[in-house]
């Protein structure tokens, strides 16, 4: 009987695994964990202004260890509309990003997060994500209907 339960369990995992893969490509939940919020504070070392998502690389120094987080943002156009452009987010700028970690939280092969909002040295906080991606309704997106 134990064997049968084991087999049923494996079957469920196979079926759920397959259906999740087939249906969630590109969605927030395919890559990021809504239950793993994260705050990243560090120096911008690289910004990729590319479609469909801009990427901000943030160097975090903690306990003598340096880690570079790749933070996914919205489309470059969305960021520009929100007041983030290549002059406001430059290498060397210290920012605080609030977002969610990727599902693989071990930073292998690299640390990846989805950014929701970014706070600049002058205290300005700006939404840096995309609307309608399935990200949690956490109040970051001003376009969210409440």
């Amino acid at each position, binding site marked *: 009987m134990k064997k049968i339960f084991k087999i049923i369990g494996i079957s469920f995992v196979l079926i759920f695994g397959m259906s999740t893969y*087939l249906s969630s*490509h*590109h969605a927030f939940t395919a890559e990021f964990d809504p239950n793993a919020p994260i705050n990243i504070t560090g120096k911008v070392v690289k910004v990729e*202004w*590319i479609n*469909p998502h801009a990427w901000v690389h943030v160097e975090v120094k903690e306990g003598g260890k340096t880690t570079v987080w790749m933070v996914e943002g919205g489309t470059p156009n969305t960021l520009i509309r929100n007041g983030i452009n290549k002059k406001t987010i430059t290498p060397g700028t210290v920012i605080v990003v609030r977002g969610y970690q990727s599902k693989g939280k071990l930073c292998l092969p690299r640390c990846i997060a989805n950014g929701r909002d970014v706070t600049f040295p002058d205290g300005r906080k700006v939404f840096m994500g995309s609307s309608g991606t399935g990200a949690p309704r956490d109040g970051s997106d001003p376009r969210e209907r409440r």
Partner: protein
Amino acid sequence: MTFFSRGISKLSLLTLLLFIIFPSFSAEEDHSEIHDLMAHLLDPAAEAIWDSAGFVITEEGEFSLEPKNQEEWDKVLYGAKVISESAFLLSRPEISKNRKDWIAVSGLLKVVGDKAFEAAERQDVEELFKVGADLYQVCVACHQTYMTD
């Protein structure tokens, strides 16, 4: 029959049973053609557009992603044409199931694909960057309606 092969037989049987018991899982199979079309045709074509325009800024300076030779531009042209022609594939009745919204969004793919093709022909990187954003909006519009978690 070994224990292992008996286990595999039982596993196959139970997997089959679960697919029968829970038809919603097997319904995913109905969309496999769409999945394959997206994963193997549209995604790579869209990546060709997105990867060909934009820039990367580091402490060393700013670097453009624009194609550097005709061979690289040809890849963008190919991607743009694939996107444009995919509109017809997605509009086929067996895929569209005559859903008006689906057909309308497929039509938008034709529009952005053609724009991307024209921009690539002119080797206009700025326009290609703008079209890349439009392309993403079309993707999102469709995914929000038809791709549910």
